[in-house]
C-alpha cells in the first residue's frame, strides 16, 4: 500500500507573549492507504495540533510533510486548499454543520471550492448521504437531526470529493455510546475501502477500533512508532 502521509521530525511551538510552548518537538511516522490510525495522548499533548498540521490547517516550524509522495511542507495556500478540498476529509467533535442549511447543502459545501464546476453536485451529495444511511433526511436541517445523524452528515461532507485521507478529531466525543459505535463502524468501513483514517481521541476504547495507536507524549510519538505495513 502506498504512503498517504509521511512526516519526519515535525515540530511546532506557540508563542503567547514572552512564553513559547513547544507542543510538538520531533514527530515522525507514516500512514498508508487503507490504514486506520488512532492518535492518543493526554490533554494538551499536541494531538489536535498534529491533526491540524496533517490537514494543512497549520504549518510546522520544522520537519517535512510528504502527502501522497509530494513534499508539501512549503506549498502555497492555493495548493494546500486544493489538497484539503480534493484529497482530505475532516470530521470534528462539534460536527461544524452550517445552521439553517439542509443536510444536502451542508454536504455540498466543499463543492463550492472545487476547482472545476461540479454538475452533478446534488446527486453526489445524495450518494454520500446514502453511504452514511441518511439519504432520506437530506432536506433536514441540523437542528432537526440527532447528534449521531449530524456526525454522519459531517462524514458525508468529508466524503463528497472521495478523499484518500479522513482526519477525525474526537468524532464520538459528543455522541452517546450507540451513535458513537455507529460512527466508528462507518470510519472502519471507510478504511476498509482503501482510505487512510487518522482519528484523534483520548478514549482508549475508541482508539482500539483502529489498526494502530500512536501515543503522543512530551511532543514525540511515545509508542506505536513509524510502521510501513498494516499489522
Amino acid at each position: 500500500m502506498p504512503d498517504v502521509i509521511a512526516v519526519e521530525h515535525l515540530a511546532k511551538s506557540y508563542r503567547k507573549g514572552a512564553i513559547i510552548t513547544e507542543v510538538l518537538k520531533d514527530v515522525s511516522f507514516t500512514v498508508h492507504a487503507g490504514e486506520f490510525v488512532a492518535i492518543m495522548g493526554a490533554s494538551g499533548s499536541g494531538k489536535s495540533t498534529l491533526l491540524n498540521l496533517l490537514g494543512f490547517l497549520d504549518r510546522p516550524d520544522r520537519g517535512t510533510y510528504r502527502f501522497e509522495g509530494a513534499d508539501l511542507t512549503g506549498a502555497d495556500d492555493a495548493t494546500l486548499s486544493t489538497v484539503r478540498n480534493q484529497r482530505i476529509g475532516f470530521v470534528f467533535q462539534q460536527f461544524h454543520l452550517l445552521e439553517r442549511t439542509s443536510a444536502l447543502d451542508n454536504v455540498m459545501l466543499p463543492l463550492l471550492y472545487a476547482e472545476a464546476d461540479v454538475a452533478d453536485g446534488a446527486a453526489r451529495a445524495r450518494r454520500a448521504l446514502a453511504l452514511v444511511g441518511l439519504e432520506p433526511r437530506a432536506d433536514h436541517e441540523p437542528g432537526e437531526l440527532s447528534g449521531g445523524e449530524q456526525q454522519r452528515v459531517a462524514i458525508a461532507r468529508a466524503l463528497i470529493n472521495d478523499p484518500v485521507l479522513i482526519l477525525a478529531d474526537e468524532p464520538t466525543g459528543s455522541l452517546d455510546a450507540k451513535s458513537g459505535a455507529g460512527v466508528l463502524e462507518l470510519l472502519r468501513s471507510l478504511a476498509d475501502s482503501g482510505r487512510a483514517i487518522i482519528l484523534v481521541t483520548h478514549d482508549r476504547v475508541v482508539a482500539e477500533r483502529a489498526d494502530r495507536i500512536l501515543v503522543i507524549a512530551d511532543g514525540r510519538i511515545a509508542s506505536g512508532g513509524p510502521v510501513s505495513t498494516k499489522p
Partner: protein
Amino acid sequence: MLRLSIRLQLAHRRRTVLSVAALLLGVATVVVMSAVAQGAERRVIERIRAMGTDLLVIQAAPAPVVAGRARQRTTVTTLRPQDADIIASGSALARVAAPAVVRSTVARSGGRNSPTTLLGTTSDGLRIQGITAQAGRVFDAAEERELRRVAVLGATVARNLFGDASPVGETVLIGRIPLEVIGVMRRRGTDVGGSDLDNTVALPLTTAMRRVLNVPFIDALFVQARSVRDLDQLEREARDLLAQRHRSRSGLPMEFVVRNQAVLLRTERGATAALRGLTLGAGALSLVVGAVGIVAVMLLSVRERVGEIALRRAVGARLTDIRLQFVLESTLLAGAGGAAGVLAGLATAGLTALLGPWDLVPPWTAALVGLGCSVAMGLVVGVIPAVRAARLDPAVGLRRG
C-alpha cells in the same frame, strides 16, 4: 456562494435590517431631495425659458436726483419706440427689438372688473415673449399702424371677465377706451418672480401709447439676440447705443437697467446647483453612516462565524475565497440597503407628488447613482471584514466554533 451568502444574511434578519437601515434612510432621503431639487430647477428654468433665454429686457433707470433734489416721480420717460429700431439696426447681434409699455390697470366688461397688466407692444414683441393665440388671433403690424382698438386677453383675465364663455368678439374697457377682444393667449404660467403671466391684456403698442395711456415714451425694450452666446456682447452694444442717444441735462449718459435672461438662467442654475450640492453632501454623509453600520455588522458577523470560516478553510476554501465571500456579503447588504432606499425614496417622491402641490421630477439619475454608490461602498468597506476573516487561524476557529 451567492445563494449561501443570501441565506446566511436572511438567517439574521433583524441584524441585517438594522445594518442597512441607515443606508436605506440615507439613499431614500437623497432620492427625495433630488426629486425636489430637480423639480425646483425644472420649474425655474421652464419659467425663464418661457420668456426666452436669448432675451435682453432694457429699462431706463430712474434718476434718483434731479437738479440737486430728490426725485419724487418714479415714471421714467427716457426710452422711446425708436430706440428699438436703433438697437435692431445698430447691432448685428440683435435679431429683433421690440418696444413695450407695461402698466397695472383694470379691465372691465359687463359690470365685471379684473385688475390686470396692460402690455402694449408690437407683433414682434408678442413673438419674443412667446405670446400666441389659444382662441381667435393676435394683432398684426397693420392693426398696429392703424392704432386699432383690439386686445388679446390672457387666460386669467378672460376667465375673470367672461367665465367659461368665449370672449372673442366681445368688448373690454381699459380706462374708458373700448377694445375688441380678438383672441385669448395660450397659457404661459408664471414668471421667475411668481407673477401670473396669464393675467395680461396685450394691445398694439401704438394703441396703448396714444389711445389708452397717452404717453410718448415706452417702459421697456425687448431685444432678442441672434444667438444666446452673443447675449453678453449684445448687452454691451445696446448700452453703448442707448448711451449715445440718451444724455442727461448735465451731459452724462443715462443709466439703463438690463435684465439679461442668460445671466438670470446662470444665477438660477447656480442656486439649484447649491441645492444639488447639499443633496450630494447629504448623500455622501448617509453613505458614510451606512458604511459604518455595515462594517460594524460585518465585523460582528466575522466574530460570530469563526467556526464557519474555519470550516470553510478546512473543506478547501482559499484565503481568496474567504475574502471574496465577505466582500460579496457586504456588497449584497449594501446593495439591498441601497435598492430598498431607492424604492422607498421613489415611493415617497411619488406619493408626495400625488398628494401635495409639489412639482417633483422622478430622480432616476439620483436613484441609479444612489444604488451604484451603495454597491460600490459595500464593495470597498467589505474589504475590512474580509481581511479580518482571512486572518483567522482555522485551527483556533475549529476549536472555538
